[in-house]
């Protein structure tokens, strides 16, 4: 198992958000996590990437046999954990390409690989930008600054394509993308599917799952995974909403 989360409990600013979450993801798989607003999907993503504002009060996360909770955010990233942010951060004054080169070289150094020089990096970056049909000029702008909502999301997946993570958590990468962009980004993600890599997509829309076909679909509600199933679960949710799941979940908890 690449990722094994057991009884995870997470609190932020005095509020318990994840309340005993279990999730196992195998290498090579794509898992989708759906669930109502405020149920804790982004909190799970942040806890996985080590956000300091989210305190883990219980449970364990094992990843590649490591105790993930022991690692700093940058160590997790160097070990191949990547989160595509629901709300990517704008950073004025830091050039996108410069930032990504620093990130890639940090990861490569950690892996014991030689660092890329500016020319090698730009060759790689241009290649990946093409994969996502991304405007090359975005490389030379400040990180996410003034990017449209869709451009920010595309930039996240572009970073993923450059960094080639082992575990990627895509938090609502589809929201804010127009139809064409959704297709492009999805095919970019699909191109990154690999036997040694797992992807968790957080989404509200079954539509994305037509493009990125998941192996497993989970429903997260009130801080726990309350149901898991195959692709068809997403279709069922699309049709019936979340209401029908909640009582069952309560039943399961009792």
């Amino acid at each position, binding site marked *: 198992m690449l990722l094994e989360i057991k009884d995870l409990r997470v609190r932020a600013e005095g509020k318990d958000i994840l309340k005993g979450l279990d999730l196992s993801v195998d290498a090579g798989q794509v898992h989708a996590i759906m669930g109502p607003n405020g149920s804790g999907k982004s909190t799970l993503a942040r806890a996985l990437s*080590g956000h*300091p*504002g989210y305190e883990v009060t219980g449970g364990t996360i094992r990843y590649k046999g490591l105790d993930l909770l022991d690692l700093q955010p940058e160590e997790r*990233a160097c070990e191949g954990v990547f989160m595509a*942010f629901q709300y990517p*951060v704008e*950073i*004025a004054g*830091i050039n996108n390409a410069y930032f*990504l080169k620093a990130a890639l070289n940090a990861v490569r150094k950690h892996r014991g690989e030689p660092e890329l020089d500016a020319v090698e990096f730009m060759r790689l970056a241009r290649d990946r930008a093409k994969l996502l049909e991304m405007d090359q000029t975005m490389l030379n702008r400040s990180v996410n600054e003034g990017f449209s909502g869709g451009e920010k999301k595309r930039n996240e997946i572009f970073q993923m394509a450059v960094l080639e993570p082992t575990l990627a958590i895509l938090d609502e990468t589809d929201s804010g993308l127009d139809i064409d962009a959704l297709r492009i980004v999805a095919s970019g993600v699909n191109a990154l599917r690999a036997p040694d890599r797992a992807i968790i997509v957080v989404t509200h829309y079954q539509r994305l799952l037509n493009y990125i076909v998941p192996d497993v679909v989970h429903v997260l509600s009130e801080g726990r995974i309350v149901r898991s199933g195959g692709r068809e679960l997403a279709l069922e949710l699309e049709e019936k909403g979340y209401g029908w799941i909640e009582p069952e979940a309560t039943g399961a908890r009792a």
Partner: protein
Amino acid sequence: MPQLAEQQDTYQAAFDAFRREPAFGSGAEADAREVAFDRFLARGYPTTRDEAWRHTNIAPIAALSFERAAAAVPDTAALAAVAFDGVSHVAVIVNGRLSEKLSSLAGLPAGVSVTSAAVGAVPDVADLNAFVDLNSAFVEHAIVVDVAPKVVVEAPLHLAFVAVPGRAPALVSPRLVVRAGDGAQVTIIESYTDLGSGVTFTNVVADIHAAPGAFVDHVKLERQSNEAFHLATTIVRTGRGGTFRSHNVTLGGRIARNDIISVLEGEGAECTLNGLYVATGDTLVDNHTTIDHAKAHCPSHEVYKGILSGRARAVFNGKIIVRPDAQKTDAKQTNKALLLTDDAQINTKPQLEIFADDVKCTHGAAIGQLDEDALFYLQARGISLAAARTMLIHAFAGDVLNGIRTASVRDAAMRLVETQLSI
């Protein structure tokens, strides 16, 4: 007040010693010094009861017994470190005196000169405060930069002010005069460096005049030691359609204070006052700027940014005056500070005095820590916390430093920012 008396004794002794020297001059020049010195004594140093000095306690300056800085020859190797790559026109001013020997001014284009002139030969500056009086009393010669009308000086001119400490704390009193004629263009880099260890007190007055249509790009890089005291009064007048740009970088000094008064005295004149300061440990940096819109259709832009750590303190006071004649003024002011420690502290105040009605004036201030969200974003991509902090500090400082057109000066300033902050 005993302290005041002691302080006066110190300066009186220094002034008496100066009086016995040929450099003191005679006649009108000597009289002017006496008048200035009497005014200085009568006024005394400002105290924290003076509004403009409320947050800047200069007691450490008042407490020291200074001597007028002696003539000195700096170490040549050390002097090399003062230079900037690719900047070949350098005037070296040691303890306030222009050194022909150490300067390299032979290549200056026709119509440009850097000379040492009798103080009586340059216009008086307004006696704004005790420090200007003190400068007028102790200044020996004025350093005068003249750029003839229409002359465009492509290469920057570096005025390297060097303070060489003596046995007693050394009082250095430079006076700088810059006159850019009609339509002239010039870039001036005014740097301040301590060479040697010991306390220095640089008290400089600069008088800059950009004639109609002239363009003056002015970098002031203060990189004195953290033991030094640095007080600078810069008075700028820009004529019709002229442009004045200031990049005021303050990276050293136990107490460093800049008073910049920029008067837009002709229609369509424009000024940019940008500043970056870094203060660490127990140091204090104070920037008091005034942009005086005297005539109509003048835009002004001002961005001041500070980075503070340790128990450092900073003051920013940005006054903008819009006179009744200055319709269609467009003034923008931004003031930001990064406080890297809990004990660092800043007092900041915009001060708008607007006497015309058809004007645009905006100002904003942002004081805070490094952006946590940005730090996490960088970390989440594999960049260490230390590297992420450095990147954000670079970006913050770069906002001001990138405006400096001479790359080697810009880079040197950024390296000094790093050194000061140990990043």
